[in-house]
């Protein structure tokens, strides 16, 4: 499998890379779309950087099979802002507004895979905000969690934790 991928990558890099931009790093999404980024961007992604370091910088095309071409631009955008030191509350608010719940989760997993600490913390906060003051049912739906409690068990647990269920917001319309 690994060989397959790398041979595939080689063919991609031959066709896509022109010699003058050899300094750029090519990130290949799971659906085989190539994104060219500056090496400084790659530095933000620990997973990518360690890949480059391991090969002494000879390989500049990195396959990212777990990340789709839909999510990767968001990740790159965030890293670009991060390098420029332009991560402000306003930027983050705008950034999040574009994302639905599923996309947040996908990006979160991408950030985890790429090991981008700042993005990971930020998205954790976003997810936490989105389930704040929500009912148990909402949280289950949000995370796709199957309820495996018997009604009796659940009632008992809720009774134990009853004091925490004051001030729960009414459920939003499910975004998905």
């Amino acid at each position, binding site marked *: 499998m690994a060989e397959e991928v790398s041979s595939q990558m080689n063919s991609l890099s031959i066709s896509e890379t022109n010699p003058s931009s050899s300094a750029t790093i090519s990130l290949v999404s799971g659906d085989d779309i190539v994104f060219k980024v500056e090496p400084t961007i790659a530095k933000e992604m620990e997973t990518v950087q360690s890949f480059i370091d391991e090969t002494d910088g000879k390989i500049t095309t990195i396959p990212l099979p777990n990340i789709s071409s839909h999510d990767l631009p968001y990740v790159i955008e965030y890293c670009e802002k991060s390098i420029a030191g332009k991560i402000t509350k306003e930027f983050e608010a705008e950034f999040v507004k574009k994302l639905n719940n599923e996309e947040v989760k996908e990006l979160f*997993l991408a950030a985890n895979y790429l090991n981008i600490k700042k993005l990971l913390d930020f998205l954790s906060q976003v997810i936490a905000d989105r389930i*704040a003051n929500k009912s*148990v049912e909402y*949280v*289950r739906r949000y995370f796709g969690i199957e309820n495996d*409690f018997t009604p009796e068990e659940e009632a008992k647990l809720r009774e134990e934790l009853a004091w*925490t269920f004051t001030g729960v917001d009414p459920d939003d319309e499910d975004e*998905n």
Partner: protein
Amino acid sequence: MANNLNESSSSSSISFSDFPEDVQLCILSFLGPTEIASFACTSKQFGSLCSNDGKLWFTLCDRRWGSKTLITKWGEGKIPYKVLYNTLHEWENLIGFWRRSGPGSAVISSPSLVFFEWGTSFISAFRVSPVQSQSEICDYQVKKVPFLKMGISEEGQIVNLLDPDGRADLNLDLNFGDGNQLNDLIPVNVCFMGKTHFVLEENVFGRNSSPVHVSGEDCGFGGEDGIGIGVGSGSPPDLLMLEIYQHLANRTSPGSDRSRRQRRKEKGRMARRRWEPQHFVKIVNCSPTELRPLQGLWKGICADMSLAFYLVAYDDIGGIACRRLGDPPERFSSYAPVFWTSNATFMESPFPLEEESLYGSRIHLQPVQPHNENHEQFPMSDIEGANHIQQFHLSENEVVNRILLINASYDLVIPDLAAAPINPRSAEGRIWQYRDGTFGFGFVRDNFVIDMKNIVCDGCIIDAVNLSVD
């Protein structure tokens, strides 16, 4: 591989259960207790994750306070993190400045200002006061005297030790069970009354903070010391404990010599109360904000060349008042402002010539530091001859960014004048805000500027001198 991707994207939703556990914990660490409880009810798997002390509750503690204190060191690392979470959740609000208040506080000679800060495995409080000049040399140094240390014993009991005289080094890693070290220290309860008020009361049962013995005859009676230590950290004094104790005492060993001896001893203890309850009020709005750039606690060299603390407060109708935090306390009790202005609108650069010369003709009151030349922006000898305009631009830090007019004052800087009728001109003055965000103020009648410096930076007292009271 491409297939895998398609499969996962075709499924309608990514389940939280599919996330790696460290990733799950990362998300959960941003939740509050309420959300954690909701989350615990979603399924058995997460119910058990949420009751996992070492994983979930550690992560929660670490997220909130990991940058401020060593989470694993509290209670010698032997207490449940959930206990730690609940404790720190309550204690966190202590961090910052508090002022002693309430009946009788004016007659207490010790400094009224107390500063709470994070320690490695405890929260400690210090009495803080300006260092008073002993000779000619006066500096911006702040005296920091140990006052209170709050921690958790390895049994999970809350141990608050008060250092009434500021003698002990509370920064020593206290073994909370070691009686020897506690001779000078008084166990106390910190009783919270809302968010901005607490009472410090002697914990009369906790004096000999010996470890709890749960063996032999000690358990019924002699263990009273142990019982009292942690109980009611946040609750009113141990009246209930006293009752329980008396009940136990009468039941378990009626008429026994030992019991009577103990009871006498206990009465003796009550009589030898070493600490009268003191009330403390939080100084909220302790630091500047964007809208209130002058707000907070500051220190400055005042007209008599001694260091003083000032508190600048904004009122709801746009006025600003600056008061000197007084030690000795009678100054504080009168509580008249040093300066006051009803209009907080700054005058922006460029300034009219008369404003430039008003500022430029002044000296900055500052510590006399004969051996520290680079600190000297305005050598005293140059006062007379200095070129006004040059002075205006002399120091990078003291380049004036904005000017605010002061239109009223009560003269506390020179107490003798306080009784004299205020003439309008004496009340007139300026606040000069510098480029670094600090500011100085002065009155038209004077020829000097009192510069305000920060007392705290990054949660620590700066220029601190750790002094024990002699």
